[in-house]
């Protein structure tokens, strides 16, 4: 049980590639933190520095309050699950799981007790005699987790543990990982490039891009209040719409977002003060697809009517995605399947303005 803290952590590979550019992060005891970001953003590098597999160029890593910069992996009391599991092919499942305990000099009875306990949690009791070759992907995944659990380490590290599994198994294992964490409550750092995995698993999500942290926060917070254009676009599927727009003064002290093609939507009253300094500027208007719905579905305030000609409709079953263009920008909305959306037809939509965002194009900050 331990907290992990990263201070101004930098990793520069030979040849001058800065994979991690000075990140600060505090992970609480028992917390499940997910590092998420596009390929090559430095997630694995960060995780491997925590594990001690990668040398730290500068900065500091502390586990449980102790700086571990110069401590080798075996003395950091961490456990790691690799993307391709890295099971020892010449050892049985039992030996794979117990290897770390054996090296640490646990008694045979204690090893057996712990392995059996982990096997029970993961449901791999019948597989203990097998060699990894005779296991399916999901079973290997469980063994890799078993290897981590038995050690009862201070921190679990996961590097994209589910990306080699098929879609269905991935969802199942995702749930299992969450259950295991709820059982053992070990501090966990989990790396993935899949934002759904990040959202579903994390207590807090850390969004990384180009070696820096864009934003840290609970999943819903990130979803509702992204801090940067990158987070706004990365979290959520389908992605948030970003429409070039101009913020203009309207009569009565209000503000209007001018979307082009003569479309405009009013800024909710409670946001006027926040956005007022940016009046008369060219910005990006951000709104998620689920906040562009059919006009009839809702009767709340802050609904702005928006009538558009639909280009493509995609029925998803429980909802229908509608695609249209505003001034050359492709926009996506989500309507009720019964709303009668049809390609090539004009449809009255409504924008839920209390969920709007305005993004500064230059700095990429969400205003």
């Amino acid at each position: 049980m331990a907290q992990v803290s990263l201070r101004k952590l930098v990793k520069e590979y030979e040849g001058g590639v800065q994979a991690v550019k000075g990140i600060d992060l505090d992970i609480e005891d028992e917390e499940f933190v997910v590092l998420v970001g596009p390929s090559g953003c430095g997630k694995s590098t960060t995780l491997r520095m925590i594990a001690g597999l990668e040398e730290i160029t500068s900065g500091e890593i502390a586990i449980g309050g102790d700086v571990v910069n110069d401590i080798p992996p075996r003395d950091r009391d961490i456990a790691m699950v690799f993307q391709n599991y890295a099971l020892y092919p010449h050892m049985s499942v039992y030996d794979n799981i117990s290897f770390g305990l054996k090296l640490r000099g646990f008694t045979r009875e204690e090893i057996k007790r712990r392995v059996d306990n982990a096997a029970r949690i993961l449901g791999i009791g019948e597989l203990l005699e097998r060699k990894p070759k005779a296991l399916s992907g999901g079973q290997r995944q469980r063994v890799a987790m078993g290897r981590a659990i038995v050690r009862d380490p201070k921190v679990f590290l996961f590097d994209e543990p589910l990306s080699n599994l098929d879609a269905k198994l991935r969802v199942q294992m995702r749930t299992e990982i969450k259950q295991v964490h709820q059982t053992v409550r070990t501090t966990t750092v989990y790396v993935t490039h899949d934002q759904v995995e990040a959202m579903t698993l994390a207590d807090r999500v850390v969004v990384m891009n180009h070696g820096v942290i864009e934003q840290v926060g609970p999943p819903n917070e990130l979803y509702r209040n992204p801090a940067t254009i990158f987070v706004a676009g990365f979290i959520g599927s389908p992605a948030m719409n970003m429409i070039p727009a101009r913020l203009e003064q309207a009569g009565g002290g209000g503000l209007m977002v001018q979307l082009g093609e003569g479309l405009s939507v009013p800024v909710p009253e409670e946001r006027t003060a926040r956005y007022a300094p940016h009046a008369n500027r060219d910005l990006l208007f951000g709104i998620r697809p689920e906040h562009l719905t059919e006009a009839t579905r809702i009767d709340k305030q802050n609904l702005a009517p928006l009538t558009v000609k639909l280009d493509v409709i995609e029925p998803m079953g429980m909802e229908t995605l509608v695609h249209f263009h505003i001034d050359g920008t492709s926009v996506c909305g989500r309507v009720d399947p019964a709303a009668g959306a049809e390609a090539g037809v004009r449809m009255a939509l409504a924008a839920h303005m209390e969920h709007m965002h305005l993004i500064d194009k230059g700095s990429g900050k969400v205003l």
Partner: protein
Amino acid sequence: MAPDGSAKAITQPVARGPRGRSPGVSSLERLARRRSSIAFLMTLPLILVIAGLVAYPAAWAIYLSTLNRRMRANIGFDNYLILLESESFRMIIWQSCFFAITAVLLKALIGFWLAHMLHHIPTRGQRKWRGMLLIPWVIPPALSTLGWWWMFDPSYSSINWIINVFGFPSVPWLGQPWWARISVIMVNVWYGAPFFMIMYLAALKSVPEQLYEAASIDGATSWQRLRFITLPMMQNIISITVLFSLIVTFANYDIVRVLTNGGPRDTTHLFATYAFQVGILSGNLPRGAAVSLFMLPILAVAAFFILRGVTRRTKEIA
């Protein structure tokens, strides 16, 4: 119409192919269609080569070893019994085993050590070193042994010269039984270690880096990683290389022939050089054949067990 026609054209031969049921196909053609027949025909050249170049000479050698000196009468296993009763041949058995086992062990150890060092040199510098370390293995051994023979020469030994510089007395390299035994082993190790090195290097490279990472996270020291990851992962290559080298080293001829010619007093003879001496130089061909066949059963049993282990591990792991 067109897609229909083409579909038929594709399915037709498949439908009749394997069973050969359609009328008008001769039984010969049907035989040729069977997969096992085709497989047999395709391996026939290899079978002939093996029969001609391996099975026939081996059978002939075994037959030869059961004849008497004049090759007139069949005397069963008497040649073997006579050999076993002879004091000097028992010494040769002992010397052959001592030579082969010591040399293979040293080659394996030195080869492993070299491979390990090479493995940790960055890739760019590695090729150069690999090439240089392979040199002993690519020079024809008869030639390089001649070089060693010169270095061991009682009066002009360059090794002795260096030893003298450090104040030690000269060593009678090829003149005393034990020094001569050590010398032939040394040359054999010098010649054979690069082969082990290159095999082990390939094996080392094939161990996934992540296993070491997982092991070090699991708490393994570098020695434990070697013991629990590297060695088990290399076990197949080690077994095969040792077996192969054991066979070749037992059958060694050129090094002993050039360096000591079996001397002093026949103490460095191996099966091959002794077989040559008995069979060709002394003209007792059947007994020579018996000498050279002596190791066959022992090596065959060793090969059987080693290869069985290799197959089992391959099934389980790879």
